[in-house]
């Protein structure tokens, strides 16, 4: 399975909400139904970003087709120094129904966050120390395009 990663600058370059907006724009086009879905969880996602859970444990997007996307956030001096990679993705990973998104969360918050997001079946909330699993191998990409594969990311747990 291929993996693509991006690193989005967060606080102090952007607020936590500003960071989530950039992530949403990275994953969805303005007219995508998925954008509305992601905007609906802005409060919760931004709060998790403010805790910097997403610095070391990525937001993981599992599209219906195509490579898995890992989105990290960059904080502090690393963000100020531009230590990110916000290049547009080769495709819109949430364009087709059937996608899932996994948010990392600290153990102290996880019960509250899962309760807050239980009405969004496309969102998983996982302990920051855990990886994620998929029920089946994602099918091959349906569209041709330039997909950059970061093999270092594939080595991560």
């Amino acid at each position, binding site marked *: 399975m291929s993996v693509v990663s991006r690193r989005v600058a967060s*606080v*102090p*370059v*952007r*607020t*936590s*909400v500003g960071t989530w907006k950039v992530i949403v724009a990275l994953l969805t086009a303005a007219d995508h139904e998925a954008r509305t879905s992601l905007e609906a969880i*802005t*409060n*919760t996602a*931004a*709060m998790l970003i*403010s*805790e910097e859970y997403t610095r070391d444990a990525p937001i993981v997007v599992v599209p219906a087709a195509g490579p898995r996307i890992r989105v990290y956030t960059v904080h*502090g*001096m690393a963000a*100020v120094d531009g230590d990110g990679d916000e290049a547009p993705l080769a495709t819109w990973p949430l364009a087709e129904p059937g996608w899932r998104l996994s948010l990392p969360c600290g153990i*102290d*918050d996880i019960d*509250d*966050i899962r*309760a*807050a997001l239980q009405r969004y079946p496309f969102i998983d909330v996982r302990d920051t120390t855990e990886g994620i699993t998929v029920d089946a191998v994602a099918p091959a990409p349906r569209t041709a395009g330039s997909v950059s594969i970061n093999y270092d990311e594939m080595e991560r747990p």
Partner: protein
Amino acid sequence: MTASVRVNTHAYATTHVATNMLRSMKQIIRESGLSISGIQSQWAVLEAGVAAWLNSRHLTGLVLEVYDPGKASGADLVGRFDFTIDYGYYSDGDGDLWLDPDTITYAVRKNGSYPARCEYRFIADTAAGHPTVDGWSTTTFRSTAGFTRHTVGTAIGGGSLGAGLSYYTRSS
């Protein structure tokens, strides 16, 4: 433990202090035994207001009022945490971006926890002429008569900004 980085940009400082004041308020709420669902459900509005008013220098404080909904109005305050903004904390306008969660934990431990039935609200104390931010409305503070204010020091710093933390306990 204090995490810090060093930059010299007002915009970075205001963003750092704004988001980390909310992050610290969340820490206070959790460590005080209250549900974080209230702050979670208002996060975007809270952050937008605090960031805007810090940037415009109208924000003088961010207050967490904790109240008991089972008590009569006017006598329902059970505690309060205040972040007070100092726009001249670093006189040279420079400085680290830092957050000291241990100061937060110390204040909560000294204050003690609240019964789970208690609720809370946030009040931004602003100077006249502040810009309007969607989602915020005008209100007044609950009376702190019979409470004692305790100051624990600066918990968040950035650029020329400092955010000092204090809390109120009932004294009579």
